[in-house]
């Protein structure tokens, strides 16, 4: 940020903060003409920000930010309209022009400051640490060294946990799933913004908030870097809503009012958006270490789950071809069930569904291996079945005529020949699984694609990091395809 711009911003902020009779900057022409301001937010697990209240579905989207947006529009003389975007993609979606500003419990982190322009804060929030039922002796993060603490990815809570060495962050895409895992005992604690903790406490009555709320931080709205006119208009409108008591009314309605909010009008808070953070760039050593770790996890999950898929698939194929009738039907049902339902649903059921039962609680890694393995087993079973059926009948008769039992025939004659036929299609499946394995991110396992997403979101370097990530995937899958082709050629040499 150039010194001149910084001085101008400081002046503007000082003006806003100190003048009691708030002057309203005009909304830029383009928005006035459109008559609408579009704001981006993620409604998933979004209470009390933006959400659908299951008790009052007819009201549509509700939340304190829905109220705030409406009042903001009233001050600015335009309609407001919400646009759905995943929380982690709010910045790129804003830059792309999917909407005009972000209003979603968004914190002015240094990384984000390099990409977007923030308004003056409209809410001061603290952090609330929450632990599971029956946990004693925990008062602060320091009591959770060596334990896993759930946080929303890329959030202030995430950064605070990262700043506590020894406390391992467990990264979630929604606070609801983090609290669910806390109930299930997969994590030792969860750190979240106070509004989130307060809003979701009724859903998780067994969880306990511990310690005093700590760490002042600010929710602010974000606009595109070049949209300083919109930022000024929003700053002034926030000042108006603060001055005329509208903000306090909204916050009291949603049980969000705290004494801290009285400082919203003080210069140091109003000026918070003008804090010029040093331009942060990627630390390449750390970046490569993180991507490498992600790649290793991708490889591990893929290899283990495919080994499971191959073994289980062969069993299923053999049962379908040679098993007694009830088992044959069960095998057929297995194949159709796992091929006919989305793997995403299967993973969520396996992880969160089974997680409700103490004895069946799998950690994300094992749930991912099991989920991918069970799913791909259905496809491998069909490949094996086709290959076994392609072995000529005369081969089976020759084996039986030598006095082999059915098992001996399978083991020494038909299955070895079938395996050679499955080599090419199975290699294809493995490469597909390799890339599909990124889906385990939904159960909080951070593999290569997820690691890429987090690094790219933090730095904005989607293209460069995307190319590096793709190269890592290729570096792992190409040698495999090459080895499979070589092996196949060797077999062909023997056969022709």
């Amino acid at each position, binding site marked *: 940020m150039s010194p001149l711009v910084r001085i101008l911003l400081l002046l503007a902020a000082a003006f806003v903060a100190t003048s009691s009779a708030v002057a309203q900057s005009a909304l830029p022409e383009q928005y006035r003409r459109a008559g609408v301001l579009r704001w981006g937010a993620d409604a998933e697990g979004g209470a009390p920000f933006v959400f659908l209240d299951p008790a009052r579905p007819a009201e549509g989207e509700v939340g304190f930010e829905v109220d705030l947006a409406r009042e903001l529009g009233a001050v600015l003389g335009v309609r407001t309209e919400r646009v759905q975007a995943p929380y982690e993609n709010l910045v790129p979606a804003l830059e792309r022009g999917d909407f005009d500003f972000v209003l979603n419990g968004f914190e002015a982190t240094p990384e984000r400051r390099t990409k977007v322009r923030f308004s003056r804060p409209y809410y001061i929030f603290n952090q609330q640490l929450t632990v599971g039922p029956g946990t004693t002796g925990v008062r602060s993060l320091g009591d959770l060294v060596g334990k896993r603490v759930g946080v929303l990815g890329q959030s202030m809570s995430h950064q605070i946990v990262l700043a506590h060495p020894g406390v391992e962050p467990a990264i979630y895409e929604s606070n609801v799933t983090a609290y669910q895992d806390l109930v299930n005992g997969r994590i030792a604690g969860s750190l979240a913004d106070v509004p989130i903790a307060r809003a979701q406490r009724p859903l998780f009555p067994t969880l306990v908030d511990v310690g005093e709320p700590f760490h002042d931080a600010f929710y602010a709205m974000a606009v595109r870097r070049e949209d300083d006119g919109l930022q000024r208009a929003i700053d002034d409108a926030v000042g108006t809503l603060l001055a005329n008591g509208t903000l306090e009314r909204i916050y009291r309605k949603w049980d969000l009012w705290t004494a801290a909010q009285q400082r919203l009008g003080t210069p140091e808070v109003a000026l918070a958006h003008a804090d010029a953070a040093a331009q942060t760039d990627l630390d390449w050593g750390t970046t490569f270490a993180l991507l490498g770790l992600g790649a290793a996890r991708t490889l591990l999950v893929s290899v283990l789950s495919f080994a499971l898929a191959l073994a289980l698939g062969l069993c299923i194929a053999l049962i379908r071809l040679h098993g007694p009738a009830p088992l044959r039907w069960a095998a057929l049902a297995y194949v159709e069930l796992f091929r006919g339902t989305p793997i995403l649903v299967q993973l969520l059921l396996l992880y969160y569904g089974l997680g409700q039962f103490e004895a069946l609680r799998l950690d994300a890694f094992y749930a991912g291996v099991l989920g991918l393995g069970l799913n791909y087993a259905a496809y491998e079973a069909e490949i094996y079945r086709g290959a076994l059926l392609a072995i*000529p009948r*005369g*081969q089976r*008769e*020759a*084996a*039986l*005529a*030598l*006095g*082999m*039992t*059915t098992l*001996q025939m399978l083991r*020494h*004659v038909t299955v*070895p*020949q079938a395996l*050679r036929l499955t080599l090419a299609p199975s290699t294809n499946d493995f490469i597909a699984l390799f890339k599909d394995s990124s889906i385990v991110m939904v159960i909080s396992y951070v593999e290569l694609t997820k690691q890429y997403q987090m690094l790219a979101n933090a730095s904005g370097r989607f293209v460069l990091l995307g190319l590096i990530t793709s190269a890592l995937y290729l570096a792992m899958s190409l040698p495999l395809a090459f080895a499979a082709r070589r092996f196949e050629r060797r077999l062909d040499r*023997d*056969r*022709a």
Partner: protein
Amino acid sequence: MIRLRGIGKRFAGRTLFQGLDLDLVPGHTTVIVGKSGSGKSTLLRVCNQLERHDTGTVECGPIAIPADLPVREWQRRATALRRRTGMVFQGFQLFPHLNVLDNVTLAPRVVQGVARAAAEVKAKELLELVSMRDAASRFPARLSGGEAQRVAIARALATDPEVLLLDEPTAALDPASTASVVAVLRDLRQRGFTLAMVTHDPDLGREIADTLFDLDANRGPTGDR
């Protein structure tokens, strides 16, 4: 010795044979002849139960297989019967994923539990017998038809069967290959092996048979002929 008593077999609504008796006498070569489509191959395959019969009994030493056994018991007895017989197919049916030596040693090792070294010594003797000793490390896809069929004969003999069943062993071969296979069969007969062969070639049948079994004359009252 294999004894067929009162054997009947229906196929696709047609009676192939009925009340049929046949003994495969040790040391003898029995050749089954008959019109094409008359059920010669089916009769041979009843001998090692690759086809189940509908009436009568197949006997081999202490094993008796009546027609109406429950599936599991039939499977058990059929496997026991097959362990005392060897079979050579018209289409060779060598195992393409194994080389010649492994094709011959597979059944002794897997079915009889013979150690690999011992099985290989014996396999090499059998390959010598069919003049294929030098081909031990080759794969079936690299063999000519006559070579493949001679390896198939060695494979069938590797478990010391009481009788060797041959189903049209020369039908898929050119004249030169046929001659090489016939030479092996003649040699086996000389050495006192028990053979039972189905062939469409009357000259070959007459030349090699101790007993000529004409299916058309022995099929019994089929009712629809």
